[in-house]
């Protein structure tokens, strides 16, 4: 047992420092320059990826991102910071800058284009257009 207790920490610490990489994630957003509409550009993203059964719908997780309530919930519950768009809670959640990353583990993340549209919508004043 003494030999075991000696070798195991050495083996563990050796194993745990090998296999180190120095990679960066692919960009999580692309720049969207044109005008963005909440109804035609943002709602479809929310409907497909967020307002799904047992997730961000009525009676489940807050905020309720169903089409009828998404704007009020995002702007009224402090998920959007139009004065500092990149600091918006919703943007930080979908880019993984805040925990828990959204959509949660096990679900595909939003594409860089989708994230780009959401950021551009906030940058353009987060309007209900």
């Amino acid at each position, binding site marked *: *047992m*003494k030999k*075991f*207790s*000696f070798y*195991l*920490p*050495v083996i*563990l*610490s*050796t*194993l*745990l*420092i*090998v*296999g*180190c*990489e*120095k*990679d*960066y*994630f*692919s*960009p*999580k957003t692309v720049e969207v320059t044109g005008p963005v509409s909440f109804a035609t550009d943002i709602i479809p993203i929310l409907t497909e990826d967020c307002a799904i059964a047992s997730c961000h719908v009525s009676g489940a*997780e*807050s905020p309720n991102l169903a089409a009828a309530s998404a704007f009020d919930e995002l702007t009224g*519950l*402090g998920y959007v910071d139009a004065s*500092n768009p*990149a*600091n918006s809670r919703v943007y*930080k959640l979908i*880019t*993984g*800058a*805040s*925990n*828990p*990353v959204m959509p*949660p*583990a*096990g679900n*595909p*993340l939003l594409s860089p284009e989708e994230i780009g549209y959401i950021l551009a919508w906030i940058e353009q004043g987060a309007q209900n257009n």
Partner: protein
Amino acid sequence: MNSKKIFSAKSIALVFVLVPAFLSAQENSDAPAKPSKEFVKGTFENGVAINNQTVENPLRKSLDFMIQHRFGVIKDEKDMFGLFAPSNIRMGLTYGITKDLSVGIGATKNRYLFDLQGKYIIFRQTKKKGTPVTATYYVDVAKSAQEDDNFINSEGEFKTANKLSYFHELMIARKINSKISLQLAGTYSYFNIIDSVYGQHEFYGVSFVGKYKFSPQSSLLVDFDYLLNVSDIPEDTRPQPNLGIGYEVSTGSHQFQIFICLADGIINQENRVFNHNKLSEQDFLLGFNITREWGFK
């Protein structure tokens, strides 16, 4: 990835520090029998204090089962002050192989993490003259079970190793008296892949844990951790220091901790590097740790 970079300089340096410590410990254990030292017991009640490891290990041939839970940030009544918000949970097992060495495994909800841990008590505080502190080394590796598509690097490649992250910690603790115990530690976190906005993979930090035992079963706990090399990271992404304040009740084979803290990461490298809840904005959340220990002697 250039194979020459597989071993980072800092990691190799860490081994040079740690291996002699293990060798030294082994040499001592093989030496002729000396009068047994009387070691200080119960510096902390548990191997975990809020969000930090402590110098404690499970007893030899004992199995610890731990549930760690973090609710959402306490904001307002709309989500019942974080209770209805997305939460994080980890369930883990830790086994004491010897009185000094333990290994553990666990699974965490956020980011679908599986972790493997090891903890080794290098030397212990003695009751009389001799060793004034207890020193313990802790290491873990976490692997995400998220889909491979979530780990594509900036060159469009997927590598299995990019699902891994590491954490090393060297802790020094002293039981000042029957009521007060203090612990300081140096930490090292490493992520194989990370957002480019961080601009670095290695994170050095310090941490503090304090315990004030005010009754035979009850203690107040405080923990704090702080990363030292994050000043170049843009402010809206920069990891935030983590503070936790809690209450612990221990009945020997059970420990229960309930607390408020800033980080919801649970795994040590996660709650240091990915904590964006700010003390200045009082982004506290409610959490608890429950431990049950079984002996197999």
